[in-house]
């Protein structure tokens, strides 16, 4: 049964190859549905794997390595083309192919007018394939292959509209950032091979607990390098700058790559390598700190953005910060749980935003929207559900996963009061920016009366409704997620902490954020004037919040830019550029020298042979 798992890779690959080679000959819609079928097929096979895993006892569900054939075999080193089926990879694949399938279906409607419809679906299938390689890899080599392929696919998709200059630049930025991560991963893989003599997960993770002392230099370095890869892929500070720019791609791309799957790869990596990270408590603190800081910073930026997709993009960064906080404090399955619920509601938010943009004739500025609840009822209701889930409204999906994270930020293995406090603030911000966005977009009166918004077709709204259902009810899957994944994390199930006080504060923070947004953006006609009159202190505070962005700019961006400028002028122009140019110039000089030496005269050639031989002889004699 497990051998069928190769189909998970094969189906999207087939889709990519056939659409990219014969795409022009496919009738338009057929190509789209074909791509959907490939991903849907992969999802069904994943379900089959899930069923198969369930037929075994939890302890036996690990390490089902499926080897297709040995790729490289030589003395001391071998690489098999093999994939790993275990609860973690199947769980991750369910999200990748499941949510991916819905987004594929949605794209048929969204990309309907695009000239390069089939090329788009070819890339989308390539992305699913790349992500599946990343998730299914049974060793670090193929992990890196998948890692790089995902980077390539996102490059192609972000820059899909090649005639749009900003999109091409954004794609390049994303690619460069991702390559930084790839290099980190690559060095980590070399170090792992040096220490363990193998790249297989099974060998490495089995040997890890005895190979190092906790906080050994080498394990710190390995985990740190792995983190560079994880942070670059998951857009965590300071490698986050590509994510907001990546919104230049088509909206389904944002939903697929920058919400549901690709950016979660970093969290998956940490969870997958938990055996290594457990040996490096210091790195765990680092992960949790970076996660919670990203959650706060991205959340605060999200509160002041006016581009509908940018708000959601910052929110993604912030939510992934929560996931890193969870894995960082040592509750891996809570991180994976939030990864799942986030995939549901964030994909829904992006697709809803896409539906709005679609209905508003490509308008993305929320200041020009408003009152869309009448024109787009289905989008309105599903977007509301997604917003509630994101804000952590009680009993929605986001509520359960986020509540567990906040709780563990204090009670978890590496949790402490600071993590908890910052997490609560970030929860409050989440509620605020979510509903600010929501009210701007759907409530009040239309601010551009000439626009004729219309509801999207069923092929787009159907995925919205399914995702809305999942966003509402997905939270109840929590206990299942924990017990299903526990074998991967050494049998640990995160404890439930009954701490009513903390729980009430967290819920209050979320509600506070929502209420603040309601107070400012829902009341009265002239919202800004009303806010200034009645809620002056809060407004001031929020206005200052905006300043925080500026301060952030002043404290970090400006100095970094200044340092960057200094580095550019001094270090780079005089040092790096010069040396690089110089190396290039010298290489060309040498090359030219070789060409000149190559005079074409036979006697010179013969002389050269004799001279060479005499040199060798002299060398041997005097050696």
């Amino acid at each position: 049964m497990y051998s069928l798992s190769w189909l998970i890779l094969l189906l999207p690959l087939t889709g990519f190859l056939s659409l990219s080679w014969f795409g022009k000959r496919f009738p338009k819609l057929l190509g789209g549905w074909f791509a959907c079928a490939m991903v849907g097929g992969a999802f069904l096979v994943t379900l089959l794997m899930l069923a198969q895993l369930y037929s075994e006892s939890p302890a036996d569900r690990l390490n089902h390595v499926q080897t297709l054939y040995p790729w490289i075999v030589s003395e001391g080193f071998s690489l098999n083309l093999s994939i790993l089926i275990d609860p973690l990879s199947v769980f991750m694949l369910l999200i990748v192919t499941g949510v991916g399938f819905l987004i594929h279906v949605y794209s048929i409607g969204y990309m309907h007018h695009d000239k390069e419809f089939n090329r788009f679906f070819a890339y989308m299938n390539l992305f699913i394939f790349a992500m599946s390689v990343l998730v299914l890899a049974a060793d670090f080599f193929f992990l890196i292959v998948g890692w790089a392929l995902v980077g390539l696919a996102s490059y192609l998709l972000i820059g899909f509209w090649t005639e749009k200059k900003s999109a091409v630049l954004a794609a390049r930025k994303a690619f460069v950032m991702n390559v930084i991560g790839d290099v980190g991963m690559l060095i980590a893989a070399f170090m792992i091979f040096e220490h363990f003599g193998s790249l297989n997960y099974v060998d490495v993770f089995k040997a890890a607990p005895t190979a190092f002392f906790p906080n050994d230099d080498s394990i710190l370095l390995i985990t740190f390098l792995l983190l560079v890869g994880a942070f670059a892929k998951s857009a965590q500070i300071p490698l986050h700058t590509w994510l907001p720019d990546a919104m230049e791609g088509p909206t389904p791309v944002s939903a697929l790559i920058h919400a549901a799957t690709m950016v979660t790869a970093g969290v998956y990596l940490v969870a997958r390598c938990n055996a290594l990270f457990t040996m490096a408590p210091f790195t765990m603190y680092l992960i949790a700190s970076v996660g919670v800081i990203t959650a706060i910073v991205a959340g605060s930026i999200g509160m002041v953005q006016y581009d509908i997709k940018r708000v959601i993009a910052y929110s993604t960064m912030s939510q992934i910060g929560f996931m890193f906080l969870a894995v960082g404090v040592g509750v891996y399955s809570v991180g994976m749980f939030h990864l799942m619920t986030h995939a549901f509601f964030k994909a829904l938010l992006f697709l809803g935003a896409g539906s709005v943009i679609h209905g508003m004739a490509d308008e993305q500025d929320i200041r020009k929207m408003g009152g869309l609840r009448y024109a787009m009822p289905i989008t309105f209701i599903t977007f509301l559900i997604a917003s509630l889930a994101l804000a952590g409204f009680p009993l929605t999906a986001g509520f359960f996963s986020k509540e567990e994270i906040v709780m563990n930020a204090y009670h978890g293995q590496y949790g402490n009061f600071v993590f908890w406090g910052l997490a609560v603030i970030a929860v409050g911000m989440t509620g605020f920016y979510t509903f600010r966005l929501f009210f701007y977009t759907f409530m009040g009166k239309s601010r551009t009366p000439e626009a004729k918004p219309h509801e999207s077709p069923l092929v787009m709204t159907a995925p919205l409704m399914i995702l809305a259902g999942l966003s509402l009810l997905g939270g109840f899957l929590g206990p299942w997620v924990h017990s299903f994944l526990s074998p991967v994390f050494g049998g640990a199930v995160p404890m439930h902490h009954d701490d009513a006080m903390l729980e009430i504060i967290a819920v209050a923070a979320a509600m506070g954020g929502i209420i603040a947004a309601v107070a400012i953006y829902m009341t009265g006609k002239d919202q800004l004037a009303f806010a200034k009159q009645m809620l002056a202190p809060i407004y001031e505070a929020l206005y200052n919040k905006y300043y925080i962005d500026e301060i952030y700019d002043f404290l970090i961006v400006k100095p970094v830019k200044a340092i960057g400028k200094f580095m550019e002028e001094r270090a780079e122009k005089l040092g790096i550029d010069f040396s690089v140019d110089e190396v290039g110039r010298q290489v060309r000089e040498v090359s030219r020298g070789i060409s000149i030496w190559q005079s074409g005269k036979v006697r010179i050639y013969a002389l050269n042979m004799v001279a060479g031989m005499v040199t060798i002889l002299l060398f041997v004699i005097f050696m």
Partner: protein
Amino acid sequence: MIAAPEIDLISLAPVLVLSVFTMLVMLIDLFVGKNKSVLVFVALTGLLLAAVSSFAKTDWPVSSFGGSYVVDHMSVFFTMIFCLSSGLAILLSVDYNKRENIRVGEYYSLIMFCTVGMIILASSTDLIMIFLGIEIVSLCLYVLAGIRRGDTRSNEAALKYFLLGAFATGFLLYGMTLLYGATGTTKLAGIAEALSHAEVLSQPILVMGVVLLIAGFGFKVASVPFHMWTPDVYQGAPTPVTAFMAVGPKAAAFAAFFRVFTTAMPELAPTWEVLLSIIAVTTMFVGNLGAIMQTNIKRLLAYSSISHAGYILIAIIAKGSLATSALLFYMLSYTFMTFGAFSIVILLGRAGKENLELEDYSGLGFKAPLLGLAMSVFLLSLGGLPPLAGFVAKFYIFQAALNEGYVILVVLAVLNSAISLYYYLKVIVFMYMKEPKGDFQISLTPITLIIIIIGLIGTVQLGLFPGPVISLAHP
């Protein structure tokens, strides 16, 4: 009294089959008119039968003719490579010869005679036989390089190759003589046996002999500082002959090089290991750095072939069974990717205008996407990118060297691989990122298409599924 050596014609089967067919080609040539295509069929049949008949002996290794000829794992594998490369060269020539008006029947028989020499070279275990093999191969190549009699470049190439080749042969023969003088035998096994005695090993003329042998073989495999003929001859010779020279005869010379040094002179290894390491490193650097500034694709590929000789020399230095299989695997992969690249080079030319400048490749990726893709695959494989054949081939050679502890050598070789990507990618940049200069008039004939497909299948297959071939190559 000299005892007559036992005669074992079965061992010689591929040589005999091929010789008979070669003569048949020459005879038939007398009776056909201007259309030489029937010769192609006869030649290909001969090569195929020769490849099949190399399995006439199955209980390898079989030594015969008083220990001067052997059928073993390596010789059979090399025979396969030779028959493949000669077959591809002949197929490659069909359209080219028509276009360039090369209407001589000797062309095909020369390639086949050359193949006979190559098989002898790879199967000989006696210095005299090796010398004979080298001479058969070289004489055929001198003529082949100059087969376009009306073309001055072709004449120049042939003459240069001949003069320098004769010079190098002198070195080689002198080296063999000294080796014979020191050990009293020309048999490789005998030399190894003699060298195990300390009083033989300490003779100074041995060192001289080794150096001269390195010079002689170094010329044949185009390693620095005996490489200078390569760019000129590769550029001047007809393109199919260039492709052939870069693969078949080079592989044969490497086979003999490997056999002589690893089986006859393991006792002298401390000396020649150092020498060959230095030569390998300089060869890689000169080849790769030289290629960077080239604007002519044939010269570029000539320098690239010099650098590849550097990588392959590492296999000789590493010795051992892994090195043997790495060498065999490398030569096979090299056959596929080189012929693939050259077939596209030929395809882009037309009568009177060969289009050999890199400029002529501008925009190929858009005008003929599949050809551009194929060329990219071949070049990237030559550069050693996974998951193509070139990567796996390099990987095995480097692994063999690492196992023997040659870390610095491998580091330098990897560095060189990185340098080499620069000029391989340069061609790809021309194909995909520059505006087309003029119209491409590509007439893709079925024969060329077959070669490209064989090249692609080989390059991708050996990259993705190297296992079966590696186990075949493993002694």
